[in-house]
Structure formats: C-alpha cells, structure tokens
C-alpha cells in the first residue's frame, strides 16, 4: 500500500473508531448514532484534503444515498486550504491565456479574494470593452473575478479517487454497504468532479441562468468574459455585495430584506418549476446580496434538472405541502419515483400528516427544514428508497429556506410559497392538454348538478 493509501486508511480507521465510541458501539440507535458517524465522516474528509472535501460536498447534496444527519453534517465541510502563491497563479494564467496577467488585464491582484479546495479567485480589471453572451456590454475598466483551478489538483484528485475506488470495492463486499453502491456512486462523483474541473461548464450554466432571469430586475448572474476563459480559468464580472454569511443588521437595514428573501424563494421555485434547471449547490457562500437590494448567484458547479412531467408533479407536491394535504403530496411524490409499499402507505401518510401539522401548520413560523429532516428520517425508518432527483430537491428546498432566513430571519417560506404554488397549479390546470383531459368530465358533472 502506498504512503497516501496508508494515511487514508489510518484516518478512516481512527474516525470510524471515534464514531463507534460516540455511538457506544451501536447501543445508541437512530438519530444519535447517525449523527456521530456523520460528524466523524466530515472531520475525516477535512483531514484528507481537497479530493475528499469535494467528495464530501458532492455527498452533501445526495440525501437519496446518505442519512439526513450525514448530509447536513457534510454541508458544514470547511475548505481550509492554503492559498496558492501569486507567482504560481500568474504562471497558470500565462499558460492558459497565452500572456502574462498584466498584458491580458489592465490590473491583476496577486492576493486572492477567495480560496477553496479546487480553485482560487483573484480580482482583475477589464482592459477592453466586452460583449457577453447575455446582458449589456461590460465597459473597459470593469472589475473582474478570475477563478483559477489550483495547480496539480487534477492529478491529486485522480490519485485519491483511484485509492478511494479500491476502498469502495472492498466496502461493497461488506453486508449493509452494498445498498450504498459505493463503486457506482464514486463513478458518479468522478464524472461530476471532472465536469467541475472544466470551468467552461460553469460558465455555460451561468449564461443559461442569466438568460432565464434576464427579465428579473432583482436577480444578478455575473456575466462571463469568454475571451479570458478556458478549461482552468473562468473570468466573470465582479459583483460587489455581501455574502449571506456576512449579512448583519447594519447591511439588512439598507436593503429591502423581506422582499428580497421572499423573491429569492420564488426565484428558486421558478428555476425548478418553470425553467427546469436549478442551482443545486446553494449555500450562504454562493449567494451575494448587492447594496441595491438584488440577489447575485455564484458557483454553478452542481445543477439539478427537471423534465416537464416532473415539474407538474413537483408543483403538485409543493402545493399539497403548502396546504397541508399529506395524501395529495404522497400521491404526486409517486410520480416522482417515490414508491411507498401498499402495506406501509397508511402509516407513512399518518406520519407525513403529523409532520405537516407539527412543522408547517401548527406553528407561527413554518419550519421547512424540520419538516424535510423528519420526512427524510421517516423514509429511512420505513426503508423506502429516495429517488435521486427527489432527494436533491428536498435538500435544495431546505437550503432555500436557510438562505431566505439568512436574508430576513422572520420569513415564513410556506406563506411566501402559497401565492406562487396556487398560481402555478392554476396555470397548469389551464394548459390545453389538461383541459382536454378534464373539461368533458367537469362539464358533465356541472350539468348533472344544474339539471338535477
């Protein structure tokens, strides 16, 4: 075994033993046990470096595979990586763009604005006017954000993934682990990572988002400067604002926080239900609030997609949840692939109704996170498999609530969603194909009433 292999094995073993101790070697059950393992998994990823941090971040958007406690623990993964020295960054830029940064940009800051496990961001100034794919021309002198892939990260990740694959193969042989499909899951993660390491993909998604929300004055998507963008470099306009983490009372006082929070939730619903593509990696660091009260979306590395049929079913599930109708929510969840066995259906329905009552209807301020966590735990308790898209969506919805509350802590996302859900269902019912299905029966029923 290589030195790196031994290091990974040592960390994994130490963290596993610690989790086992915290779970009192299986004496603690359910939530406490899952929380102990989730926490040690997060710490192991942080200890093992960029490739594992990234794997953990990918796992954090997969509640269909991992327990909710693990998913929410992994969401807290911290990128504590040293910054890449300015000289190395300048060398990468020269290799990628064909000239030194000072020749490409009119100014380039060698001190990074942000560092993360995969890339580092520097500020620069645009040397010439640029016409982006969407939106107005960026004038010369515009401030830019230049995101650069860390040197050697591809090789480092490939080596760690090769080792992880060996471990996954062994894990798959253990009873109880085959259900997680470690090998195919790792393959999926490898593909997602490969896509994330090519920054042009992120630029394309950003352009599409910018187009989807071109008519929305409250949404900002930084314009991509393709002339200075390659596989390892993504150059966009720099948007001034506060990350949600940094949004304090003073900043909130200067913006229309309530309106912005409600709009943020609606924008997410539009992404899922109207445009069919949504930012699936929303967290407070990926969102800015600008001083002129707009929301700026960043980092389009993980994107979820919905088909037209899924959108109809999701809208129905959303409306049913908003209005507290457990039966309807489960009925349309089936169309999204959630299979509840007949014998478990009454118990599941009762638990969902109870969760809705406890977390959504029976409170002054709805608690979507509590509801969703309870819902995911309930599915785990009943051993009901969660379809991938369904899990991603639940996770995203929880995040949207978190984001909206970071902007305006008193927001009730359920109340905000009601008008949108109602409007959407009405619009769907008015679609010709739905009318064709429903009008004859509705007409007959109405006439029967009239002529009775």
């Amino acid at each position, binding site marked *: 075994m290589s030195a790196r292999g031994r290091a990974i094995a040592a960390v994994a073993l130490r963290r596993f033993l610690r989790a086992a101790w915290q779970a009192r070697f299986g004496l603690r059950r359910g939530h406490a046990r899952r929380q102990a393992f989730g926490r040690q998994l997060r710490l192991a990823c942080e200890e093992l470096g960029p490739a594992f941090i990234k794997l953990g971040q990918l796992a954090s958007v997969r509640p269909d595979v991992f327990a909710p406690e693990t998913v929410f623990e992994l969401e807290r993964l911290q990128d504590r990586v040293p910054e890449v020295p300015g000289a190395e960054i300048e060398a990468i830029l020269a290799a990628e763009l064909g000239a030194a940064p000072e020749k490409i940009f009119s100014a380039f800051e060698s001190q990074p604005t942000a560092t993360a496990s995969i890339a580092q961001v520097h500020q620069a100034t645009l040397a010439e006017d640029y016409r*982006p794919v969407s939106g107005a021309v960026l004038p010369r002198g515009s401030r830019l954000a230049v995101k650069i892939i860390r040197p050697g990260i591809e090789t480092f990740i490939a080596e760690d993934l090769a080792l992880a694959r060996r471990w996954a193969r062994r894990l798959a042989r253990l009873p109880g682990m085959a259900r997680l499909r470690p090998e195919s899951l790792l393959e999926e993660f490898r593909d997602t990572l490969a896509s994330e390491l090519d920054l042009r993909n992120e630029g394309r998604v950003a352009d599409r988002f910018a187009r989807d929300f071109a008519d929305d004055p409250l949404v900002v998507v930084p314009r991509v400067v393709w002339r200075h*963008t390659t596989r390892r470099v993504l150059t966009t306009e720099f948007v001034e604002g506060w990350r949600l983490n940094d949004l304090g009372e003073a900043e909130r006082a200067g913006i229309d926080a309530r309106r912005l929070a409600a709009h943020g939730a609606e924008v997410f619903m539009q992404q899922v239900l109207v445009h069919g593509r949504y930012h699936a990696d929303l967290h407070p660091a990926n969102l800015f609030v600008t001083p002129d009260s707009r929301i700026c979306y960043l980092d389009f590395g993980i994107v979820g997609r919905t088909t037209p049929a899924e959108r109809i079913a999701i809208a129905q599930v959303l409306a049913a949840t908003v209005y507290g109708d457990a039966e309807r929510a489960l009925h349309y969840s089936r169309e999204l692939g959630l299979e509840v066995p007949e014998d478990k259906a009454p118990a599941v329905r009762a638990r969902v109704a109870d969760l809705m009552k406890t977390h959504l209807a029976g409170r002054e301020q709805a608690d979507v996170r509590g509801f969703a966590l309870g819902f995911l735990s309930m599915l785990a308790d009943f051993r009901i498999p969660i379809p991938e898209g369904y899990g991603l969506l639940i996770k995203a919805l929880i995040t949207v609530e978190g984001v909206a509350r970071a902007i305006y802590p008193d927001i009730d996302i359920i109340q905000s969603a009601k008008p949108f859900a109602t409007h959407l269902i009405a619009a769907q019912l008015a679609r*010709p194909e739905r009318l064709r299905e429903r009008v*004859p029966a509705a007409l007959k029923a109405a006439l029967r009433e009239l002529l009775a």
Partner: protein
Amino acid sequence: MQDLVRMLAAWALVHESADEGWKAAVTRGRKLEPGALEEGPEAFVDGLAALVAEEKERLKQEIANVGAEGQQDITRPAELGQKLDAVAFELAELRGRLESLQASVDAIAARGED
C-alpha cells in the same frame, strides 16, 4: 351561448384532437331530435358537442378565407420573436465558445514561440 360555443370551437380547432369519445358525442348529437336536449345531461353534452363541431367547421372556413385574402396570422410574430431570441442566444453562446477556444489556441501558439 353563441360566444361560449365559439370559444369552445376555437379551442377545439386549435387543439384538434382525434378523441373517439368526442367524435362519438358529435355523431350522437347530430342525430338528436329538437327538444332532446332536455332529456338529461348526457343528451345536453352530445348536443353541445355537435354545436361546437359545427361552429368549428365554420371557424375553419373563416380562417381559410382570411388566409386567402393575404392577411397575417396575428400569433406568428410573437412566436417568431421567441424563436429568434432563442437562436440569437445560441449564436451568442457559440461566439463565447469560439472566443474561449481562441484564447486556448493563442496560449498554445505563445508556448510554441517560447
């Protein structure tokens, strides 16, 4: 009533369907005797279906006449505008890709010169 029938006819025309149930209702409705509509909801719906089908044919004829006179269909410019927007965006995306490729080509060329 005429407006309602015309609206339903317009809807049936735009969403021309080969629904067997609908066709059967039209056939039954055409065979109804005067006064049969009061026999119950089924007869009423059949009668209405026949009325709508008749109105649909009339509407079709009107549209054909308008087309023959060289007038434009008012829905087309909006649709064309949307399609044009979509194509313009794809073209802009393509320009972006080309610019990015150009940057990579320039970088390779610069390395060759070193």
